């Protein structure tokens, strides 16, 4: 290899590293559960965050005139090991929604109501927390695991 190739390759590598570094710092968002977020409030008010929680079906409200979607999420663990220990994602979400002692956060999202938004869905949202404790989501992703009650079919025929 001639030195000019090494220099050229080195420059490209440096450029790629710079690209990755600058893009990472510019768009990194902390990923938190509801409890983690509330523990660091108010320090993180206004920061760009990515939070996760279980959607509580009764709280879903949609105003089509303004395309304003509001709902509450309950704290649910996001760590894989923790979820497995507590019986899987479906069960964790089910428990989160049916446990009134869990911390909850109100979410506001402007846009089209997603097809997958329903109770016991796992919501993953990007946005910011305001000083009143309301989370303003700019991006809303939903995951519906097999619902806990339905993980096994209900018994429909009596023996």
């Amino acid at each position: 290899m001639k030195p000019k190739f090494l220099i050229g390759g080195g420059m490209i590598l440096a450029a790629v590293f710079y690209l990755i570094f600058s893009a990472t710092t510019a768009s990194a968002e902390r990923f938190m559960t509801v409890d983690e977020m509330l523990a660091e409030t108010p320090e993180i008010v206004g920061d760009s965050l990515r939070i996760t929680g279980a959607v509580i079906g009764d709280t879903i409200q949609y105003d089509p005139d303004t395309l304003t979607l509001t709902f509450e999420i309950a704290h649910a663990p996001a760590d894989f090991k923790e979820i497995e220990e507590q019986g899987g994602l479906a069960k964790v979400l089910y428990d989160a929604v049916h446990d009134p002692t869990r911390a909850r956060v109100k979410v506001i999202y402007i846009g089209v109501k997603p097809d997958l938004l329903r109770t016991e869905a796992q919501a993953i949202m990007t946005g910011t927390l305001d000083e009143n404790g309301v989370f303003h989501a700019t991006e809303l992703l939903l995951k519906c695991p097999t619902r806990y009650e339905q993980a096994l079919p209900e018994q429909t025929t009596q023996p």
Partner: protein
Amino acid sequence: MIVEFGYGVLVLSFLVTVYSGVAAVYGVRKKSASWVESARRAQLLTFPLISISSLVLIYLLVNNHFEVSFAYEVTSLSMPAYLKITAWWGGQAGSMLFWSWLLSMFTSLVTLRKWDRDIEFLPWVILVSAVTLTFFLGMIVFFENPFSRFWLVNGNVVESMFQPVAATIFRPEDGRGLNPLLRHPGMVIHPPMLYLGFVSYVIPYAFAMAALITGRTDDRWIRITRRWSLWAWLFLSFGLVLGGRWAYDVLGWGGYWGWDPVEIAAFMPWLTGTAFLHSVMIQEKRGMLKQWNMVLIILTYSLVIFGTFLTRSGVLSSVHSFANSPIGPFFMGFVTLTLVVSVWLVIKRWNELRSETEMKSMLSREALFLLNNLLFISILVVCFWGVIYPLISELVSGQKVTVGPPYYERATGPLFAGLLFLMAIAPFSAWGHSTLQTLGRAVWKSILASLVLTFILFFTYTQNLYALIGFFLVALALFATTHEFYRGALARQKTQNENFFTALSNLMMRNRRRYGGYIIHISMALMAIGILGIELFQKETQGTVAQGESLIVGEYRVEYRELASWGVQSDGVNYTRAVLDIYENGIYLGQLYPRIDYFYDAEQTMTIPGQRSTFRDDLYILLVDWQPVSNSGATFKIYVNPLVNWMWIGSLVFLVGIIFAAWPDKDPEAVSARVKKSVSQTSAAD
């Protein structure tokens, strides 16, 4: 009975696969051709066995055998028969069976080829595919069994393959059915396309490993598997495009690519596969980059296994859930193991894989190909970093930090731009040596034409700097590639005394891979137009309107006429459809019908956009909500996606190009000999 039969055949195929691998190695050890032949026959047996097992599964799916938990998960009474068949790959267990079926089919095709010249590869190719197949079949047989059933024990429902003590079979009245979002033609073809691509890459990998093990490290393995890698690349690319089209038509967010981990998982093997496609040419023509090619095919294989797992493990949005499955650790273990063994083999043969010639000029064809490879791998690194960043940040700082689409767009944008530029100039550089002068002389016309076009766009269409750079590069790639066709045909016209079009078609037919490649380059530039359009110029509006009222976006006026709701019991779906009149600058264009489907069995809605596509832009309208009683007001979200149609036009051109390049000649052996000869004769023109 039939369930046990299907499972029994599956277990048998597992054992036969294990045997074929063991017999192949034993045959090599004992230098016994009959053992290798026995391995070969065992390998050939796996295909009919897995086919039978798959047919049993399809039978269970089609005939509503909901006592089988897989059938319960992915089918329901209301699904039409064709969807029940495709439910085969609608869940993890079934799709792994589908994967195994494809692999045993492809390996059988390879096993049946003429082996005279490369018989030493045969046992190792069998071994590598047997190891892969053993892994997948093992996962199915022991952990993700599609034949597992529901049983009633003391009033409780349990899931098990075999009858527990004092249990009776339990058959739910209806299944849960495929997620409505997946009941779409695009989603019916998309996974098998992706899988065809994934599985095809096992074959070049198997030959690469065979070459490393036997020490026959010339480019024979590349020549044998050239067509496999091309077809693999075709299917993978088309699978990705179909996935995008499905997202655009079904997911209702006005886009086709969201940089989520699942998409990236399918995109990463495409990146290494594309780099591989380019760099093998350097090895064939110049005897360089042998080590690099090995690394690329190993990476592709590992990413394929990784991607198979990621795309089917229920990961839709969570950055952490790719371990969210009992088989996750096994997959990671298998990928690590194969990676370590492969890399060890490469290191062992490192010296034999040295380049035959040294790279001299920075602007030579081979140097630019190398640069192209670097860019593809850089994009891979960007993607991989984005996917694992949350894990790394957690290790380093204890905080989970994620990166979203802006990260990928920002970091890959310049790299894609670099690729477009290379695509334009690389065909003009010569093998061995090029200078700025010779290159400049070849491309200055294209550069000038692109600059002129960019200026016109600046005054008429956009002043956005990124868009102008993008359009300049696209134009350069298009002009330069077309110029390359023209230049070649002109040269041939002179030397062969043919008219221009005969010369052009002869030129293309004689150099199919090369000109097929250029057609693909054109298609990529066209797709880039679509990407620029939707990324930079998307317009949107939304609002609630009463009947007869309009929404306005850009030059379009959308007037709400009426709305109807009806249920079709046999489909299990309730449809709500709006009728809209579309006007552009006051001229009536026609009607669009955005709708919302409600699926009773899944208790889920599905938003289907109304779309109108032209070369200039797409009008993309979503029905968001409606007033149920009066039917008078309804809410719409409207996107205008400029130029996005070029994305799909480009993908059709792409298909033409790759089929042109990969279409089998009568006798591959004869052709490769002929190509070799003609290359040495016309290397100056190359």
